[in-house]
């Protein structure tokens, strides 16, 4: 499914300075029962966000009205565990278009790239500076520039470059997906399959 094109995103950010945030926290398994990709944002971080009686937990960042924006900044090893793409869908559906962390789990990172959420991996030091800046002033804006592969804390001007493969960058900037590409080489795939050892 083609998704929104990503170019330059300038936004405030929501800080979640917790390490090893696994996809069971991002969206618990009991909310994976839909057969369509709708409504997952409501249950993003469900058990950290709401009490058992569905009242909001006031100290959780998503419930703190001072924090807002299209960028989620997480701690180290973000998105570990289950391969559920529903975690990336929940992040997207809630309104985030970019997740920043000093380290991502592989499958979550891939899933994000496949649905148009940009995972930006920064150094541990830069991650700390982002947290410090947002917590000191929640109105701090970050600029994520995909063409230049940079992320900048606008209030201080501190900036860092990030990695993305040229192929995925092109996909993100143009809203293409892998199936468009794979469909275009179908004949080559079928010839390849005819000569496999198994």
């Amino acid at each position, binding site marked *: *499914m083609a998704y929104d094109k990503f170019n330059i995103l300038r936004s405030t950010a929501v800080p979640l*300075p*917790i*390490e*090893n945030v*696994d996809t*069971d*926290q991002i969206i*618990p*398994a*009991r909310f*994976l*029962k*839909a*057969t*369509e*990709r709708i409504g997952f944002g409501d249950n993003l971080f469900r*058990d950290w966000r709401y009490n*058992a009686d569905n009242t909001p937990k006031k100290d959780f960042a998503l419930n703190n009205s001072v924090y807002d924006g299209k960028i989620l900044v997480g*701690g*180290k*090893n973000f998105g*570990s*565990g*289950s*391969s*559920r*793409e*529903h975690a*990336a869908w929940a992040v997207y559906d809630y309104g985030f278009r970019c997740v920043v962390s000093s*380290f*991502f*789990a*592989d*499958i979550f990172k*891939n*899933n994000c790239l*496949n*649905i148009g959420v940009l995972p930006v991996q920064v150094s541990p030091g830069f991650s700390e500076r982002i947290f410090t800046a947002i917590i000191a002033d929640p109105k701090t804006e970050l600029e994520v520039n995909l063409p230049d592969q940079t992320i900048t804390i606008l209030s201080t001007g501190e900036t860092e470059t990030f990695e993305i*493969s*040229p*192929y*995925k960058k092109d996909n993100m900037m143009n809203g293409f*997906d*892998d*199936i468009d*590409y*794979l*469909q275009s*080489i*179908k004949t*080559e*795939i*079928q010839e*390849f*399959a005819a000569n*496999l*050892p*198994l």
Partner: protein
Amino acid sequence: MFDKVWDTHVVRKIEGGPDVLFIDRHLIHEVTSPVAFLGLKSRGIRVLYPERTFATADHNTPTINQHLPVADPLSANQLRALESNSKEYGISYWGLGHQKNGIVHVVGPEYGITQPGATIVCGDSHTSTHGAFGAIAFGIGTSEVEMVLATQCIMQPKPKKMRITVNGKLGRGVIPKDVALYIISRLTTSGATGYFVEYAGDVFENMSMEGRMTVCNMSIEMGARGGMIAPDETTINYVKGREFSPKGEAWDKALAYYRTLKTDPDAVFDKELTFDGSAIEPMITYGTNPGMGMGISHDIPDAAHVEGGAATYEKSLNYMGFSEGEHMIGKKVDFVFVGSCTNGRIEDFRAFTSLVKGKHKADGVTVWLVPGSHIVESQIKEEGLLDILTEAGFSLRQPGCSACLAMNDDKIPAGKYAVSTSNRNFEGRQGPGARTMLASPLVAAAAAITGVVTDPRTLIEELV
């Protein structure tokens, strides 16, 4: 070995991008496939090779009264979607009630869908299980499920390679799950992210296929996409003659290919780790990720001695209701869960039964024994294990993922403690507020008969 299998399956390499990797076998289940089928419908495309995809229902299914309609309307709807999608696209479908129904990573190997040297994917991170056969097997997201349905390929950058060698004789009461939990405790939950692991050494060579599957299954819990073990006679004996294994001339050809799947003596790895198997104890976890494990006789470490932030560590212990420096032995256990794609195979039930034989279930402990498939269920009955279990006060449920991820009704209540043979102790994994301690089937058995965390080595002289 990894390179051989990977390179054999690369359709094309994209300049500055991933490899286009051909997938031999694709497994699907009800939770991560419906949106992929919707994608196919909206694009108006068919499944390219329906004979290479196999569907089974497992995540949502009840583990009692499977002959009755599924009560939860959302679960029932998801199960119906898998059935109708499979029928519409000509995919073999093993739904609830089908003799071949069971946990996807248990039935795949049992029916010979899993083959050495194959590429295998599934929208489930524990697809790494199939690496036990020398396959490249890993979990994928739903967008990738759609790619495989549409084109039998996915786009993947080639991961780095790590070799983990464990030599030495395992101690009494130490079984494959302990080896897996030990390695993860040493690497942490992200220590192998970006890598594909090859397990080597006599500890793995001496393991049965069931044991190897347990180890490879847990590879994802240290961040690795997958883990694999070179196929040998144990592998070939397991694979031979299974329903979907090659037959006749095709078998001879396949066998010749399997025998090429060795790791060259001069193979180079991006990272090499070696552990001493004799140093491993029965393991248990005390925190909220699988890397937070230790030998069962140890005390919970201080924050100062663990890698990572103190705040995250404190949050984790608070969730568990534990404190630094406490013993794990003697802690109260409310639930015991034996099952899942990690430990839902016949050997796991043999191990559990060996320890509870002639003893009795502790009062106040709820024990769920959930076989991974109908084959495992039949073996438990045929080998006489069920009689021993019944005598000891236990009963058997029906196959499925069950309390591992608690998508069905098998949920551990908030605040309760469970010793589980499954793979994840994340917050709320086994039900909102549930507190999970991961361990082997032997440690689970020791907890089931004592009602507290117990070192299985203290219970009987001669363990399996």
